[in-house]
């Protein structure tokens, strides 16, 4: 975050996303948005309201409900001079577009020996506890992270969302950009002036000495909340946000692990074969001899996400469960 004496403006994460898009669209006429209900409706989450009024329906395109098709059109447009920002309403629909993303977008540069590039951003959402049930609540970013050729961005604050989205749009590779549905209304400082945040640079969201909590997207706020609870118990937690899962800033993660010697990794995707496994592995591979305890993983339960509120709430980590895990790891 930039150091400044005067109080900076506050925006919600949704507003930060919209502002990043508007600024990039003004800056570069090749940037356009396509997806379901993105124009007049401004998406199901109203994140894009106003953009079609400024940029017109040629640059903010409502599509049919054809995720494979319009993602593919995005790939082709991104290869031939445009900079598409493709909107996939719910991250759960990833299952429909993995061929386009993993077999086409991700591979074109390599398969062509570096000749074609595919500059596109796929914006989508993650996050449960919205009472949307099993097909509208998943956080499936691990699928994309697994595929060489893709980049995966997971902002946790309005400031990061804006700076990272601008970098994603300017990037010459296919980038998957995740927004937590539950964080759209989260407010935070976002300066007026133009800035970008490079992909591949983690951010220490909170300094601490006793334990490192590596958290992504939605789970960063949970981790910060847990850190406050831990503070009360005399445990000083460091919260590290990788911000992009690929490229991954391993060094910042490892350095923090070495410093504190205890690590929890928290991510909202399913815990099994998920992003936490990679992050935990990076830590244990590189900080093994500095660790006092095994790296603890916390992700969504290995169950389809239930509708019923008390059940759904049990499936994802929260401040209390992260705090408890941290205390246990510290032997308290």
């Amino acid at each position, binding site marked *: 975050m930039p150091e400044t004496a005067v109080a900076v403006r506050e925006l919600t994460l949704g507003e930060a996303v919209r502002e990043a898009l508007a600024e990039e669209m003004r800056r570069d006429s090749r940037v356009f948005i396509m997806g379901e209900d993105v124009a007049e409706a401004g998406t199901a989450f109203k994140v894009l309201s106003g953009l079609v009024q400024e940029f017109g329906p040629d640059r903010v395109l409502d599509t049919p409900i054809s995720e494979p098709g319009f993602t593919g059109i995005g790939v082709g447009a991104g290869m031939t001079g445009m900079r598409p920002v493709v909107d996939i309403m719910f991250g759960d629909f990833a299952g429909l577009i993995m061929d386009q993303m993993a077999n086409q977008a991700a591979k074109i540069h390599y398969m062509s020996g570096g000749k074609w590039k595919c500059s596109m951003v796929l914006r989508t959402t993650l996050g449960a506890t919205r009472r949307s049930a099993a097909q509208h609540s998943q956080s499936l970013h691990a699928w994309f992270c697994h595929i060489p050729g893709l980049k995966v961005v997971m902002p946790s604050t309005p400031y990061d969302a804006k700076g990272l989205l601008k970098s994603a749009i300017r990037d010459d590779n296919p980038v998957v950009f995740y927004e937590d549905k539950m964080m759209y209304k989260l407010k935070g400082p976002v300066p007026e002036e133009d800035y970008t945040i490079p992909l591949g640079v983690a951010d220490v969201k909170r300094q601490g000495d006793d334990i490192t909590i590596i958290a992504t997207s939605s789970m960063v706020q949970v981790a910060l909340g847990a850190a406050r609870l831990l503070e009360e118990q005399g445990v000083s937690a460091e919260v590290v946000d990788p911000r992009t899962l690929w490229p991954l800033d391993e060094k910042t993660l490892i350095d923090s692990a070495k410093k504190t010697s205890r690590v929890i990794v928290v991510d909202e995707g399913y815990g099994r074969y998920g992003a936490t496994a990679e992050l935990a592995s990076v830590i244990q591979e590189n900080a093994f001899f500095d660790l006092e305890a095994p790296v603890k993983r916390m992700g969504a339960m290995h169950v389809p996400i239930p509708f*019923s509120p008390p059940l759904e709430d049990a499936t994802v980590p929260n401040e209390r469960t992260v705090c408890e895990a941290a205390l246990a790891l510290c032997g308290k």
Partner: protein
Amino acid sequence: MSTVIAGSPPDSAIDNKLFLRMYRRMVMIRLFEEQVNDLYTRALMPGLAHLYIGEEAIAVGVCEALRADDYITSTHRGHGHCLAKGAAIDRMFAELLGKEAGYCKGKGGSMHIADPDTGNLGANAIVAGSAGIATGAAFSSKRLGNGRVTVCFFGEGALGQGVVYEVMNMAALWKLPVIYVCENNMYNEYTHISETAAGDILARGPAFGVPSESVDGQDVRAVYAVTKRLVDRARKGEGPAFLMANTYRFMGHHVGDISREYYRSKQEEQKWKSERDPIKVATEAILAQKITDQAALDQIQSEVKAEIENGVQFAMAAPYPNVDKVEQDVYA
């Protein structure tokens, strides 16, 4: 909008008892949905729901033409289909509230109601998500020789999903007993069908070997008659059919979609509500044909109302599932 179906029997061909049964069922769906809206408005329901109000004649006309053991698949806008196929009001409400007594023990919610006892293979929150399932069920029926027909309900928005054409093609190749019922209410969420479908929707079926018809989706008798014919045909082994039922949703895309003027006019809504309400259409016909009198219809209304009230009270009083149930039912 409405289309005269070649071969539809004249009104009198539908017997009076059936007509009144269909009337009652439409009223049940209408009152159920009004109650759902009320629960939402009073913040008593977790999440959202997509109301079927205005489209009742389709679910009822179609399902009355089915055997009890025939299958249906449903959509995000599925309460009407479930009730028309015989679901119990109380367990429906219980599911919508996430209660253990619900059809899915609270795990499914509004968009996933399923019930083997009434042949309901499940509502589906992925647009076109049940096209494969319905076709597969028809495949089983053909192989097992049990004479069951499957109806696959979907909105016209599902015509954007290529998988629909893939399965129609196979249903035609293999002469499967499946009827694809497209509820064309002209809107994919907040986008008009004219922006999302090119060419001729009714030509799509035949291009894949599936005979197609359209019907006035506001006239329960017409829907019943054409469905009966298509179902009989399918049951005899003559293969699949596509039925487009022209209709309109009277409410928002979901319960929270209150301000709709930016995508459709109040006049348009008003015209449909006043001129094409399926319950009004039925009422007028019943009275004109003197099948019964207004008092008898009022009696039906108040009986149904009592059922709805009992159902919602049951659901409100019912307990949530215990949290330890969260890991049950992942694997059979």
